[in-house]
C-alpha cells in the first residue's frame, strides 16, 4: 500500500499520516477498496457478537451452582485405551490454522495474477475448512453419544452443553458459510471471471482479485475467533 500514488495527496506514515488521511476529502482509508473496508467493519461488528457470546459464557460458567465439567476429560479421545486430552481439538486447530496459510498464499498469487495457483490454493483452503467442519460434526456426535445435550449433561453444570453447542455451532456456521464462498470463488477464479470482467450473478458488478483478499480477511477472522474459543473453552 505504501508505494501507492494518489494524485495530489501525499501518504505520510504514522499518526501524522492518519490525521492527514482523516482530514482529506473523498476517502478516509486511502487506496482501500470499498469491499475491503466493508469487510473490516463487518468483522468489527462480528467481533462484538463473539465477544458477547464469550463474555456470557464466562459469566454463565462463573455463576453456576453445579461444578463445571472437567474439560480435559470431556474433550479427550481414547487412543489404544489411553485418554489423550485435546487430541481432536489439536488436529482441528492445526487444520484450520493451516488453511489460513493457504488462504494467505492464494491472496498473494491472486495479486500476481497467477490464476491457476490462486485457484488451487483457494480450493485447498476450502477443503481445510470442510475438514474442520467434518471433525466438528464428529466431535458433536461423540459428545451427544456420551449424553451431552443443550439442556443438560452427565458431567456437571447443564450450561456446559448449552454454551458449547451454541458457541461452537455459531463458529461452525461461520466456517460453513466461508467454505461455501471459498468453493464459489474457486469456480470464479478457475473460470477466469476476473480476467474476462464477467459480471456477478446477483450484484451485476465486475469483480477483481481484491475479492480474494476480502474473502481471506473473513477466513482469517474465523480462525482468530477459533483461537479464542479454543483458549476459553478447551484450555480453561
Amino acid at each position, binding site marked *: 500500500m505504501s508505494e501507492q500514488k494518489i494524485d495530489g495527496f501525499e501518504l505520510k506514515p504514522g499518526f501524522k499520516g492518519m490525521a492527514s488521511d482523516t*482530514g482529506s476529502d473523498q476517502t478516509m*482509508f486511502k487506496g482501500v477498496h470499498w469491499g475491503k473496508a466493508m469487510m473490516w*467493519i463487518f468483522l468489527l461488528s462480528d467481533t462484538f*457478537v463473539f465477544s458477547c*457470546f464469550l463474555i456470557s459464557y464466562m459469566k*454463565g460458567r462463573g455463576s453456576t451452582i453445579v461444578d463445571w465439567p472437567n474439560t480435559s476429560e470431556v474433550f479427550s479421545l481414547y487412543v489404544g485405551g489411553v485418554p489423550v486430552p485435546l487430541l481432536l481439538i489439536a488436529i482441528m486447530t492445526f487444520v484450520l490454522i493451516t488453511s489460513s496459510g493457504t488462504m494467505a498464499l492464494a491472496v498473494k498469487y491472486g495479486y500476481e495474477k497467477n490464476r491457476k495457483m490462486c485457484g488451487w490454493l483457494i480450493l485447498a483452503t476450502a477443503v481445510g475448512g470442510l475438514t474442520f467442519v467434518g471433525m466438528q460434526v464428529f466431535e458433536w456426535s461423540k459428545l451427544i453419544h456420551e449424553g451431552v445435550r443443550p439442556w443438560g449433561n452427565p458431567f456437571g453444570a447443564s450450561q456446559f452443553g448449552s454454551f458449547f453447542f451454541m458457541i461452537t455451532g455459531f463458529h461452525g456456521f461461520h466456517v460453513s458459510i466461508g467454505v461455501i464462498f471459498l468453493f464459489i470463488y474457486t469456480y470464479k477464479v478457475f473460470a477466469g471471471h476476473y480476467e474476462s470482467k464477467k459480471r456477478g450473478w446477483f450484484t451485476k458488478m465486475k469483480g477483481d482479485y481484491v475479492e480474494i483478499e476480502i474473502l481471506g480477511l473473513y477466513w482469517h477472522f474465523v480462525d482468530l475467533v477459533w483461537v479464542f474459543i479454543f483458549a476459553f473453552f478447551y484450555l480453561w
Partner: protein
Amino acid sequence: MSDEYNNNKSYQAQSSEVMDGSTGSVNPDIDYVRPAEVGEQDLYHGHSFIEKWVFCQDAKVIGVQYFLTAVFTGIVGLILSWLMRLQLGFPELAGFMTAEHYYQFVTMHGMIMVVYFLTALFLGGFGNYLIPLMVGARDMVFPYVNMLSFWMFFVAVAVLMASFFVPGGPTGAGWTLYPPQTILEGTPGSGMGILLMLISLSLFVIGFTMGGLNYMITILQARTRGMTLMRMPLTVWGIFTATVLAMLAFPALLVSAIMMTLDKVLQTSFFMPTILKAGEVLEYGGGSPILFQHLFWFFGHPEVYIVALPAFGIVSDLISVHARKNIFGYRMMVWAIVGIGGLSFFVWAHHMYVSGMNPWFGFFFATTTLIIAVPTAMKVYNWILTLWRGNIRINTVMLWCLGFIVTFVNGGITGIFLGNVSVDVPLSDTYFVIAHFHMVMGIAPLMVIMGAVYHWFPLVAGKMLHEGLGKWHFWITFLGAYSIYFPMHYLGFIGVPRRYFEMYDSPYMTSAVGMNEFISIAAFIVGAAQFILVFNIIKTLKTGKKAEQNPWKANSLEWYTSTVPPEHGNFGERLPVVHRWPYDFSVPGAKDDFIPQTTAPSEVIHTEVEKT
C-alpha cells in the same frame, strides 16, 4: 447595526477554510481540488417495474421504501397506544380488553416504536435517501446489499406483525423482554408470540447490518471531490455516528435473542434460574437473568442514541437553513455527537439500578450518565446560539425545530433526575420514567422527523407541502404532547406504577383517575392529528404546487442535483465538486444570503460589502 461595521472597511466573503486574505491577491490555486481517487461508480439501472420500484437498488427508492414500511408499523404502534390509553382513561369503555391484551399492547407498542419505527425511519429512511446525496455519491457503495437490507427489514416487520395472529397472540413481557417470565407460561404470548418476536429482532439486526455497512462505507470512502469529513452536513455526522453505535450495539441484541430462543426452544438455562412453580421445580436452573439485562441494555442504551443522534444532526441542519445562519460551533457539534456516541456505551446499567447490582456499579454508571449531559448541553447551547440574531423564518419546519429543542431540554432534565441512583430508586417503574423517555426519545425525535418531512418533501416529491395544514399539525401535536406527558410526571411522583392494567383501590386512585382521563383524551387528539400530515401528503401529491429547485435556499448538495426529484445516479453527467462547508448563510458581501457548497472561492472572493 453595531460598531464593527462603522470603520468603512470592506469585508471579503470567503470560504470558511480559505483564509489567506493577508495579501488580498487572488491565489491562482484557490479553486484547486484534488482529482478523483476512485473511478466512476458502476451502477446497475433497473429495466422492469420490479427492478425499478420493488427490488430496486437505488438508495433513494430504498429510503422511501424504508420510510413507508416504518410509518406503517408506526401507525400500528399508534393504534396500540390508543388502546392502552382507552383502558387507562376509560376502562368502562374498554370492556373487550383483558389484562393480557393490555400487556401485549404495551410490549408491542414499545418494541415497534423504538426499533421498527424510529430506528428504521432515521437510518433506513433518511439515511438511505440523504447520505449519497449529501456526500455527493451516485448511490450507496453496495446497492445490491442495500436492497437486501430493506427486504430483510420488510420480512422482520412481517414476522413481527404475524405474531398478532398466532395462538396466544404477541408477547406481553414488556419491550425489555426480561427473563425468566418472558418465556414462562402465564405471560401472554409466551408460546409463539415471543418466538416470532425474537426471530423478527434477529432478522432486523441482520438486515440492519447490511444497511449499516453501506452507510458507513459510503460516508468514509465514497465522498465527492472536496468533501472532507469536516465539510459534511451534521445530518450525515449524526447518521454516521448512530450507524457506528448500531453496528456495535446490535450484536448484544442478536446474542441475547439467540440465547433466549434456545432457552425457549431447547430448554437451555442461559437466563433461567431454578424456578418453583406451584410447588414443582421446573427443568430450568443455574442461569442468570441479570446477564440478559446487561446484554439487553448494552444494546438498549446505545439504541437511545441511535435514535437521538440522527435527530441531533438533522435538526442542526434544519435550524441553520431556516435561521439563515451558519451552525454555531460546527466542530464542537461534531465532537459532541461523537462524544455522546462513545459515552453511550458506558452508561447501560443506569437502567438496572433496582436490579440488585453492587452499589458501586450504580455509582459508576450514575457518574458516566451525568457526564453525557455535558456534550448534550453543548449541543443545546449551540442550537440556541445558531438561532441568536439569525434571520429566522417561522415556517412549519422551524416550528418543529423549536418544538424539538424545548422538548429535548425537558426530557433531558428529567433524565438528570433518573440518572442519580438515589432519585431513581423511588421513581423507578413509575409514570415519571414513561414521561421522561417519551419526551426525550419519543416526542423529541418525532418532532425532528416531522420537521425533516416538511423540509425534504419538496426534494423527494417535487411539490411543497401545505404550510397552513403543517402549522395546525404542529400546534396540535406540540400542545397535545405536553398535555399527555406533563401530567405523567406528576403521576410518577405520587407513585403510580407503569405497566399496570388498572389501579384497583390504591391510595392515589382518586387524584390519578381524572388525570388519566385527561391524558387519554389528549392522546386521542394528538394521534388523530398525525393524520393531518397523511392528508397533507396525499393532497399535495394530487394538487400541490410544484416546488422550485432548492426552495429553502439551502447549501448542501442534495438540493443541487441535475433533476428534482433526483434520478438514479443523482448528479447527472459530472459529480459536484465541494469547496466549502454547507453553512455559508448570510455571509457578509455575498450576492445571496447563501453560498452553495459547490461555489468556488474565486467566485465569491473580493465582493464588497454594501455599507449599512
